[in-house]
């Protein structure tokens, strides 16, 4: 069965304390892996797309990487404004996205 699992469910960091979020997947025919950020009461906001193992993308304090079985979202020196829920989703050939349940990140000053 196709599945996307994110860990941890929740993560609390101090400002400046770097860490990583994990997204592991078991799908055949992966067409792309997407990372989104979701703030409370808002829709998901697109961050990155990764297409093949070894690919990396960066945006400000965020860096996403992809292997054949998982993706990591690395957060370097986070700030309180990075607090949000981060969602991972994969796209199979010919189908819509399969979402993980998300990791809720809280960064305190």
């Amino acid at each position, binding site marked *: 069965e196709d599945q996307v699992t994110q860990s941890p469910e929740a993560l609390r960091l101090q400002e400046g304390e770097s860490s990583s979020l994990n997204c592991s997947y078991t799908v055949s025919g992966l067409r792309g892996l*997407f990372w*989104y950020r979701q703030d409370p009461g808002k*829709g998901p906001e697109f961050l990155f797309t990764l297409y093949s193992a070894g690919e990396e993308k960066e945006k400000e304090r965020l860096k996403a990487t992809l292997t054949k079985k998982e993706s990591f979202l690395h957060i370097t020196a986070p700030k309180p404004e990075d607090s949000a829920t981060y*969602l991972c989703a994969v796209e199979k050939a010919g189908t*819509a996205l399969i979402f993980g349940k998300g990791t809720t990140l809280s960064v305190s000053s």
Partner: protein
Amino acid sequence: DVKVTQSSRYLVKRTGEKVFLECVQDMDHENMFWYRQDPGLGLRLIYFSYDVKMKEKGDIPEGYSVSREKKERFSLILESASTNQTSMYLCASSIKTGGSNQPQHFGDGTRLSIL
């Protein structure tokens, strides 16, 4: 920037009512999607559409229908609302390409309560 607009942020309806949720996108995207988001369950796909008048069932279509009469508009219909359809409903759109996949862009959601 892509703009996906959902007609209501909050909606309260009664059991048995027929409920319409509207979504409009302004970027001429071919693909449109309806999800519901529940705590502990994440986003689940209800229906999607790859073109006008075309629809495909997602993972949880029971109790819902959709309409896509114009390219920019995708409507979700709850035929006879029930309390277990209380949820956050999210609409998304994306461009159709023959090659690499483009991300879906989301609206801010409609929080629907069925009493």
